[in-house]
């Protein structure tokens, strides 16, 4: 299953590493960025700083970033909830890091890889889905595709590039 551009994204309730609960709705944010990511994937790690920079840069415009780890932690212990907490303690995260232990949210969104970026507008409608930018290996790209999409949503227009191919490690589904 996957969400179409323009369709309303599913709501969810997920815990973060600090004991809070987060939802995709009721935030009052003009845009919400949902990023499926994880601890052990080189693509997710390579793009992490760019995503974090975007979260900081758009914070004063009210944009909310939610990072979600849905990987099967039994087969991949580096993606356990404890490992997520340790990582957030160790690093400077400008966004909550949520745990999708049942993988229901990842399935509902049709997430495929890490990172997989979904930009939702104030009505939770999907406006962009895909990669942060065109090259994990080029920090100079600064998550440009994501920023273009956010600028469009914040400006009340449609992103010129609404969908790109997400690139990364496959989400580690439970057997």
């Amino acid at each position, binding site marked *: 299953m996957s969400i179409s551009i323009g369709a309303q994204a599913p709501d969810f309730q997920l815990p973060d590493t600090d004991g809070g609960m987060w939802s995709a709705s009721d935030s009052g944010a003009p845009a919400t960025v949902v990023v499926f990511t994880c601890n*052990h994937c*080189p693509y997710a*790690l390579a793009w992490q700083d760019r995503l974090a920079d975007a979260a900081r840069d758009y914070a004063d415009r009210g944009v909310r970033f939610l990072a979600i780890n849905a990987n099967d932690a039994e087969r*991949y212990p*580096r993606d356990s909830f404890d490992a997520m907490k340790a990582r957030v303690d160790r690093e400077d995260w400008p966004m909550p890091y949520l745990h999708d232990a049942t993988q229901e949210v990842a399935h509902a969104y049709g997430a495929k890889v890490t990172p997989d970026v979904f930009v939702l507008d104030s009505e939770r409608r999907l406006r962009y889905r895909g990669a942060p930018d065109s090259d*994990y290996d080029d*920090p100079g790209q600064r998550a440009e595709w994501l920023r273009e999409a956010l600028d469009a949503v914040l400006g009340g227009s449609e992103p010129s590039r609404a969908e790109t191919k997400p690139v990364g*490690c*496959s989400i*580690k589904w439970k057997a």
Partner: protein
Amino acid sequence: MRELDVELLWWEGCPSTDRALAAVREALTDLGLDGVEVRMREIKDDGDAAATGFVGSPTILIDGVDLIPAAPEEQIGLSCRVYRRRDGRVSPIPDPDDLREALREAAERAEVKR
């Protein structure tokens, strides 16, 4: 003198295989070893990973030895491997300079024919 045995272990869950293969071929060409064949070996399941000590895709073996030794915390299993570039950046494939250097050293050890 003999041929260098270069093998690239890959898993379909990682999109870095083509880029890794290109990087290995480029390094071989730079070293004048462009006649060396790069054998591709798919790791299909946990059994394959356990049998080969596979710590992630791509893994490049030279004469059966991991070109970039895995860190102790690396776990055997189906995943994408985390490499570090020389500037500290995380990458799904080895730094081209590391690749070239390791291949050069392996070739010298083996007195490989060019």
